[in-house]
């Protein structure tokens, strides 16, 4: 979706503000929000792309006015409501908590290090012929999916060169909405001037990871 989260190249966001000796968390609520989100991931009730898409659907003005963990709170609550794991009535206290079942049990303290060190798997063991090869000139499609996409707006319609081929991966654009459509993932190199025209810097480059469905052959252009 062409949402406010897709920020690459936008003007007017102001200066980058850094903080001396920044703590890992600012306040207990950030700690709890971080931990809740990760603990829920262990239940197997949603994938990372659904999680990202839930955050992208926060109202744009709210998104821009919120800190990162506030966006997480909005996204997690939205997901849990949509999946029927919690209800508005439970959240407001109008109804007692009702039992639910999940694919995997709640994460225990003893398993935290094991689960987090293992992570997830995004490489898919499928024998699919790659459509593009390293060195090939490709163009990011000028598409504007209404749902989740990992093709940033600033790349669309622009031509680059395949820098690396990462093999068959989960496809976030499909995975956020239902059955996955595993396909090849590539790293594509774009010149700064290709992306930003006269405002680009000759010699500078931007590398973007893009999937098969984001790309078309441009070698004969």
């Amino acid at each position: 979706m062409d949402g406010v989260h897709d920020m690459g190249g936008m003007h007017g966001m102001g200066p980058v503000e850094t903080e001396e000796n920044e703590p890992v968390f600012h306040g207990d609520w950030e700690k709890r929000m971080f931990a809740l989100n990760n603990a829920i991931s262990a239940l197997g009730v949603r994938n990372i792309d659904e999680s990202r898409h839930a955050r992208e659907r926060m109202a744009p003005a709210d998104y821009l006015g919120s800190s990162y963990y506030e966006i997480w709170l909005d996204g997690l609550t939205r997901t849990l409501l949509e999946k029927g794991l919690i209800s508005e009535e439970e959240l407001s206290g109008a109804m007692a908590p009702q039992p639910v079942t999940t694919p995997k049990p709640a994460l225990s303290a003893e398993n935290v290090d094991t689960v987090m060190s293992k992570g997830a798997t995004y490489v898919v063991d499928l024998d699919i012929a790659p459509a593009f090869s390293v060195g090939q000139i490709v163009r990011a499609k000028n598409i504007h999916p209404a749902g989740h996409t990992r093709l940033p707006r600033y790349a669309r319609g622009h031509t680059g060169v395949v820098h690396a081929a990462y093999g068959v991966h989960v496809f976030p654009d499909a995975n956020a909405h239902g059955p996955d459509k595993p396909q090849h993932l590539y790293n594509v190199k774009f010149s700064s001037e290709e992306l930003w025209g006269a405002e680009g810097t000759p010699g500078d480059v931007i590398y973007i990871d893009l999937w098969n469905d984001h790309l078309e052959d441009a070698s004969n252009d």
Partner: protein
Amino acid sequence: MAHDHKHNDPLPDTVLRVKSLESLLVEKGLVETAALDALVERYEKKIGPQNGAKVVARAWIDEDYKQRLLKDGSTAIAEFGFSGAQGEELVAVENTENVHNVVVCTLCSCYPWPVLGLPPVWYKSAPYRSRVVREPRKVLQEFGTELPASSEVRVWDSTAETRYLVIPRRPEGTEGFSEQDLADLVTRDSMIGVTKAKTPVNREEA
């Protein structure tokens, strides 16, 4: 770059909403309080840029290791026991005399947790995400990083699950340094690519 703390003050009902959500999820048996505590402790104490600094220091002193790291980041980094969530597929990119790498996630805030821990607020902010793909040299200047016009800036936008780790240049005057002394020069920001590694001189000042 004076920091304005208003950015970190939560919206009025946020703290309450997080508390309510936690209580509800605990009551429903979906999360365990002790697991939440363990998650916080892991990312406050065990996982942070000190991990990535060890990897970089090894790459600086061991050419074979550096080549393994550049060829297959995940496997080389796993030699240190660093792996997992938000770092399943790690790719290391090397700064040289003529090349400077910098990492961003324009779509959210993807970041290599196993080697850098959780991202700082500025990395997750709209200004950084919007600007660094478009005017990286200007952003780097604001971090105090001046690059010659002859150098090539490479910006890596983490749009997939691949996470990028910058190997900064080894500072001059560090011949004979131990691996640990070298690791002390490797900062979080230098592994994101917005700054260079510390020099022995500014390490003493720090």
